[in-house]
């Protein structure tokens, strides 16, 4: 029983991070119908920036702020400079460009920071706690991860749902031409969407690295799981991304705990195929078929 509970807790922690990463893929897909495969590499790069600060004795909070701000700027930069010039062509062009960018950023990071694994100090404690006679494996660092993702997702949701800026962002994503006719600066909104995604990705990168080893390629697995989570959720639904992330987190934890950790990827693939067979639009797709 304790084992199941601990596996579930571990699943929530993993799932929170996958959800955060899926959210940034969804942010970009909704706005530009592109999957940004460079998202993980961008997050890796900003995590290295944070690591440089921390390893030079700066406080974690400063490193956190710098990493998120850098992620925001990098996201905006990627949209303006790399993606926008190819945006008028077929969508596949832009996707290929993000793949190229992914390789380029990883190579750049390896040149600048070295290709070996580094240990990112945990910002919070790594001890579990006891409730009565039960040892829970939920460490301070795990709780930090969950709370950070919850707070960030809540802020994002509030921004989109309750502010005029959020309304502009959604209008630009779902009805570009109509939005322009109504005076919405669609280009700016798309840049802002990519920037927010960059910020969210940096958060996910930091949370994953904190208390463990990382290298220029440490986000690759997260990209795969985050993408799967986003597809499970329907690719354009925030709620779907969160649920998809949690489903994957639980799956990974339970399969690794009860079956074998080498089967984790297979299980994720099986879930993905099952969902796509039963509900091709994903679990929570919010897009509706447009009348013509």
């Amino acid at each position: 029983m304790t084992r199941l509970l601990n596996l579930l807790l571990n699943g929530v922690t993993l799932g929170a991070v996958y959800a955060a990463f899926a959210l940034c893929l969804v942010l970009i897909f909704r706005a530009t119908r592109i999957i940004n495969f460079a998202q993980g590499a961008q997050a890796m790069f900003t995590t290295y920036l944070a690591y440089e600060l921390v390893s030079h004795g700066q406080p974690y909070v400063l490193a956190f702020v710098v990493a998120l701000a850098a992620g925001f700027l990098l996201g905006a930069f990627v949209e303006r400079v790399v993606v926008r010039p190819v945006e008028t062509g077929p969508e596949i062009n832009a996707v290929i460009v993000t793949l190229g960018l992914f390789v380029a950023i990883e190579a750049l990071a390896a040149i600048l920071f070295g290709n070996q694994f580094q240990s990112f100090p945990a910002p919070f404690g790594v001890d579990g706690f006891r409730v009565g006679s039960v040892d829970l494996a939920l460490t301070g660092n795990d709780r930090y991860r969950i709370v950070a993702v919850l707070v960030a997702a809540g802020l994002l949701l509030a921004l989109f749902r309750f502010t005029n800026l959020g309304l502009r962002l959604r209008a630009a994503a779902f009805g570009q031409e109509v939005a322009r006719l109504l005076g919405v600066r669609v280009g700016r909104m798309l840049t802002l969407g990519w920037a927010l995604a960059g910020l969210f990705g940096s958060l996910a990168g930091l949370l994953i690295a904190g208390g463990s080893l990382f290298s220029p390629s440490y986000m690759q697995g997260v990209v795969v799981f985050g993408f799967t989570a986003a597809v499970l959720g329907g690719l354009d639904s925030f709620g779907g991304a969160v649920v998809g992330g949690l489903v994957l987190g639980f799956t990974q934890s339970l399969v690794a705990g009860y079956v074998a950790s080498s089967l984790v990827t297979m299980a994720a693939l099986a879930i993905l195929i099952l969902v796509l067979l039963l509900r091709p639009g994903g679990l929570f797709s919010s897009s509706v078929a447009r009348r013509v």
Partner: protein
Amino acid sequence: MLEIRNLVTAYGAVLALDDVSMDVPAGRITAVLGANGAGKTTLLRTVSGLVRPRAGSVQLEGRDITDAQVEDMVHRGMAHVPEGRGVIAELTIEENLRLGSLWRKDAQQEEIEEIYRTFPSLDSRRKQSAHTLSGGERQMLVVGRALLARPKVLLLDEPSLGLAPRVVAQIFGIVRDLVDRTGLAVLLVEQNAKSALSIADTGVVLNLGKVVATDEAHALAADEGLRHAFLGF
């Protein structure tokens, strides 16, 4: 209010508009009529900046807006209701309406309430997703949204498309009433020439990108030869 002079718009080698000129005065409805492919939609898209003309000019209240950005048109007093309704189906009805007045700093909730009073069928469904609306309700929503931008010129592209005659009459009636009350200038593009001429003041007939006739609406409606040749009734 709106002056269109010698407008030429081309898609590649094909001239969609060929030397088109017309005036859209305040307090009047100017209807642009013609068959499919006559250039009606291209005219509106060129006027609002979605398509760039090859030659000619567009002036709004004496100021040249030929090269203005699409996003700025609403600031200059122009609202464009595109063909195919232009409802953003993923947003709620209220959110669609709010988009209309978003660019104005002085927008009041009361103005949105007024739109609800004009179109009561939207009122009870404010928080519903706009994709649940019928075709007529969608048209009401986009007209209401365009009005919230407080335009001086309203461009309407085929508002009657796919709607029941009773709904068309209702929407046209509301537009006519608005023009008479507020002095709004309306440039209405319609394939449904008969209904359009019944509310318009002036009619312009387009054929293959050229203006073939411009006259008072009742005179056009009375011209049997023109009706048979270009208007199909």
